[in-house]
């Protein structure tokens, strides 16, 4: 177990170099260049442009730029934007916002998705089951920008229950509407996944044996049915949390949430390689850690899974 953990951590090193290199290369390959983007076609002070070129090593060959950047990271220097803002400061500002949004969406998926999944499985074939099938299909099929604007208009503007945009009201008030919108498709998926895996387990021999033991229905549901149907749900939720961490360009855009998604969008347009590569690297590390946690959780959930 300990060795498995260490090996998994070591595997992150090549992944780190691979992804940073790839993202850096992609940024370099984007059409246009930072100077043109900054100038926006207007003449600029050549001294200023020269300063930018020197500051960001823009005249160096790509590979040299990359190694200068990596070298900087290992000395704790993540670089600066063209506006002379430290990338670290941007992280500190953006990541908490995205974390709050991701956590809100995640809790909605987890709690509502699993609870309603259990309910529909228990009432299979009933009116609520049919209604939920329809509703989840609708949620999965609706593009997020449609749902986002509808929810924003209805609850934020028309009814005025919650702030329609921004994060001035703080957590949780400002994050409920965008959280719901961001969670919608995954929530529907978790609901159906829970229902499906529960129904499979309901027909199993050990659930029948548990009934023969005279156990109360609640005990059977909790200890026998749910425990055995958690693996697919945990797998999905783990991957989804990591994805949520990456921010949500569209949802953040609609609700004007200054999170990672918006920053990434902006920085890609401005060719700010240092910001994009830095953010993506942090996200990839978060993703790897989530994957590792999910894998470790398997061992807890199912004793038949052992790590050598």
């Amino acid at each position: 177990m300990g060795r498995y953990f260490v090996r998994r951590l070591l595997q992150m090193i090549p992944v780190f170099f691979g992804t940073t290199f790839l993202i850096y290369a992609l940024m370099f390959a984007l059409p246009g260049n930072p100077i043109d983007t900054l100038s926006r076609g207007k003449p600029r002070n050549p001294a200023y442009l020269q300063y930018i070129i020197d500051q960001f090593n823009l005249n160096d060959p790509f590979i040299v730029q990359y190694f200068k950047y990596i070298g900087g990271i290992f000395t704790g220097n993540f670089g600066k934007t063209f506006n002379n803002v430290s990338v670290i400061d941007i992280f500190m500002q953006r990541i908490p916002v995205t974390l709050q949004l991701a956590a809100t969406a995640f809790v909605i998926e987890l709690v509502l998705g699993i609870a309603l999944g259990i309910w529909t499985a228990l009432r299979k074939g009933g009116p609520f089951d049919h209604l939920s099938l329809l509703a989840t299909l609708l949620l999965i099929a609706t593009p997020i920008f449609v749902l986002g604007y509808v929810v924003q208009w209805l609850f934020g503007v028309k009814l005025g229950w919650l702030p329609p945009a921004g994060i001035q009201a703080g957590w949780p008030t400002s994050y409920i509407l965008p959280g719901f919108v961001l969670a919608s498709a995954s929530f529907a998926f978790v609901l159906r996944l829970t229902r499906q895996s529960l129904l499979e387990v309901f027909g199993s021999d050990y659930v029948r044996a548990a009934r023969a033991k005279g156990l109360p229905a609640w005990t059977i549901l909790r200890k026998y049915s749910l425990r055995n149907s958690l693996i697919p749900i945990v797998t999905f939720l783990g991957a989804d949390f990591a994805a949520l961490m990456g921010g949500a360009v569209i949802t953040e855009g609609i609700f004007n949430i200054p999170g990672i998604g918006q920053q990434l969008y902006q920085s890609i347009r401005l060719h700010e390689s240092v910001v994009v590569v830095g953010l993506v690297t942090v996200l990839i590390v978060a993703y790897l850690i989530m994957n590792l946690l999910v894998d470790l959780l398997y061992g807890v959930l199912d004793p038949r899974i052992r790590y050598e």
Partner: protein
Amino acid sequence: MSRAVRKTAGAEGWTGPLLSVEDLNVQFKTRDGLVRAVNGVSFELNAGETIAILGESGSGKSVTAQAVMGILDMPPASIPKGSIRLKGRELVGLSEKDYREIRGTQIAMIFQDALSSLNPVISVGEQIAEMYRLHDGLSRSDAKTAAIDVMQRVRIPAAAQRFGDYPHQFSGGMRQRIMIAMMISQRPQLLIADEPTTALDVTVQAQVMELLAELQRDSDMGLILITHDLGVVADVAQRITVMYAGRTMEQGTVDEIYDQPANPYTIGLLESIPKLAETVERLPAIRGLPPNLLQVPPGCPFHPRCPLAQDVCRRDPRPPLETVSEGHVSSCWFAKEVHARGGLRV
């Protein structure tokens, strides 16, 4: 409620049979139609007695057992007719809450495949201990002690050390012992064993059957053995019910049925047991397959496979249960003739 009080409640002074099943009918609603899985099956069981219900797959023997346990999913299953009485108390139509208090405590059931019938993600010790906690209200540590105790009773080596192990860490025979420990933990008066040895090696089969017989001797428990294996039955059961297509084909004592079977179906089953003393090219088997329960043939359900079938067998009504000797009945138009021939080979 203390254990002693509950175990005897409602049973004081009862002198009749432990279990009596009368004219039991079970049917399932399926998309393709109504499946009549059990049709008018009756049998009785006394305390300390072992009876066997014998039949091929689809004969309705497991459904009968599950009906007695009250673990059929209703719907799609239903019991349109019949009665199941435990010490005189009617179980058909009992509320789920009342039934739950009987299951696991007064009647218990062992299943064919112990690996799939044990919860794979919970330790075997916990699966046994929860019986003591939920039914007897024992504390966690007392329940653990009691569970280790019952594990030792079914002779699981190093029971205390293996308490925390999971089902997949045990051999097939040990898993079945764990299942047995779990189900006898409440000292049930009735134990139903549904093909308890089918999934096991022959040597292990004998050990498990021996264990069941021993536990039964110690506790005066009634045992219903459900099997398709006549070899298993001979040593342990006193009486046999042979089922086919959800109907009783023959019923009688083990000796009667082995020595003087009165039904061609039973003879077919007996002939398909391999015998050590004989060398045969090919083991005789009953030709054909059991009928699809959606389309049971008219008349005697066995007639398409029966070597004795005549016109009368193909017409309704099906043959009634005819008494061929004291306590020995057979559903066959030729029951008396078959019985009189006194033995194998039709």
